[in-house]
């Protein structure tokens, strides 16, 4: 293992690998990625694999739109031989209450202004797009046909392989145990395999970013929350878009491989790092799916699992250098949508670390916003 590096990135998920690739591409090749298990073993490999641009805050919209532009070219850009399984059959977001319709109208205004082609549609129009949808109680829906799906394992592997070819060292089964400091300056990272000399560390540790923050004496305004998810056996193509409902707290999509992946948010889920599973989840979500898509009732569930959302108070990520700890960068708090905005996050963080002009201003996503009280709440999280 190398004993020094210009930049050490903690976390071998899609965000860490995307930052590493972008650093190397911009000429900074002396980069190490530390992953305590294997690539995508954390939140990336447990996520619902959806990529959407229909968000309710300017920054989430901008990051997701720019990331979708990149996803569309990712296979060629990273010269990755396996298909990343990009599918763009849209996201259909169901509204069951008038106040949801009002919120969607606001979101769509914002999205359209930022160049995202979303629209409000009627229940019959929604049924044309998803014929097996039960329209009972449905008031309308938001739809963007360019949203969709990509395979998180392959996207991460694509970034990791491209980063390695440019000289980045990725150490799996290598855990960051402490960060050494002299005054407010970082001097090194201690791992279970030895010490690495560095003065720049990137916290891309997903659900464990709070623990990495503690290592430099920070109490970061993030917490982790288990989200459960399940998958069925594969069947012939039936459902184009990802369908989500904030009212019922669920999402459901058919991936290109044929399986249906679906999950739900539990408003009563306690904070913590638990990634266990519960039968209550299986039962509750199955009831919702059975009601909303009666034809799916006969599908067999083959697995349930869970992963961590790393939440912030406004459900937007924190992307910045910490003023109190120069050289300590944050790419954390993705609040359940880190995968879909990883490509642009990788670009912006690499530019920030190298002191370059940012291709997208992200100062609104700094750490200080929580103290200043300048929060713009993201209303559209499942």
């Amino acid at each position: 293992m190398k004993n020094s590096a210009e930049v050490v990135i903690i976390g071998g998920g899609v965000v860490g690998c995307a930052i590493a690739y972008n650093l190397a591409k911009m000429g900074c090749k002396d980069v190490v990625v530390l992953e305590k298990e294997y690539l995508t073993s954390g939140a990336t490999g447990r996520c619902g694999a959806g990529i959407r641009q229909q968000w309710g805050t300017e920054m989430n919209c901008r990051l997701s739109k720019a990331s979708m532009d990149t996803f569309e070219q990712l296979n060629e850009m990273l010269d990755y031989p396996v298909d990343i399984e990009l599918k763009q059959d849209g996201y259909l977001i169901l509204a069951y209450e008038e106040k949801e319709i009002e919120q969607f109208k606001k979101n769509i205004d914002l999205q359209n202004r930022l160049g995202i082609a979303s629209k409000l549609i009627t229940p019959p129009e929604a049924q044309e797009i998803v014929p097996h949808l039960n329209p009972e109680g449905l008031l309308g829906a938001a739809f963007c046909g360019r949203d969709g799906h990509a395979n998180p394992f392959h996207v991460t592997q694509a970034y990791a392989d491209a980063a390695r070819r440019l000289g980045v060292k990725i150490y799996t089964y290598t855990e960051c145990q402490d960060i050494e400091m002299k005054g407010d300056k970082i001097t090194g990272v201690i791992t279970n395999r030895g010490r690495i000399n560095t003065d720049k560390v990137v916290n891309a540790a997903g659900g464990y970013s709070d623990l990495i923050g503690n290592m430099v004496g920070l109490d970061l305004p993030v917490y982790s929350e288990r989200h459960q998810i399940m998958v069925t056996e594969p069947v012939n193509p039936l459902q184009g878009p990802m369908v989500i409902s904030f009212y019922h707290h669920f999402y459901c999509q058919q991936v290109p491989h044929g399986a249906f992946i679906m999950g739900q948010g539990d408003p009563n889920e306690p904070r913590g790092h638990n990634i266990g599973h519960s039968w209550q989840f299986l039962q509750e979500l199955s009831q919702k799916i059975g009601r909303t898509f009666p034809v799916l009732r006969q599908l067999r569930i083959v697995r349930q699992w869970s992963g961590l959302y790393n939440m912030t108070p406004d459900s937007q990520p924190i992307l910045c250098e910490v003023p109190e700890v120069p050289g300590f960068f944050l790419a954390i708090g993705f609040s359940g949508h880190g995968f879909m905005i990883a490509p642009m996050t990788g670009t912006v963080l690499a530019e920030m670390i190298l002191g370059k002009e940012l291709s997208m201003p992200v100062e609104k996503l700094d750490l200080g916003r929580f103290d200043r009280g300048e929060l713009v709440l993201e209303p559209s999280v499942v």
Partner: protein
Amino acid sequence: MKDDIILCFCEDLTREEIRTAIKNGARTFDELKRLIRCGMGACQGKTCEDMIQREIMDITGQKRDELPLPRRRPPSVGISIDDAGRGDADEE
């Protein structure tokens, strides 16, 4: 054993495809799974796991007691969304 025999029946993966992924760096069953989907099908690895673990041991030199087992998750056999939603057996 021939290289073109299928080891993972659910996902139609040959021994050669599995060995190639191990040679490309996958050191555990859970890593292989994320790269080539072995063990992600209807049987969730119950048919192929032991054969695939042997290929991992053969190529990486890890011993059986060093090799982590894949994480088990419910349901232990596939169940329909209808049955799962109906819930407790004693309610029937």
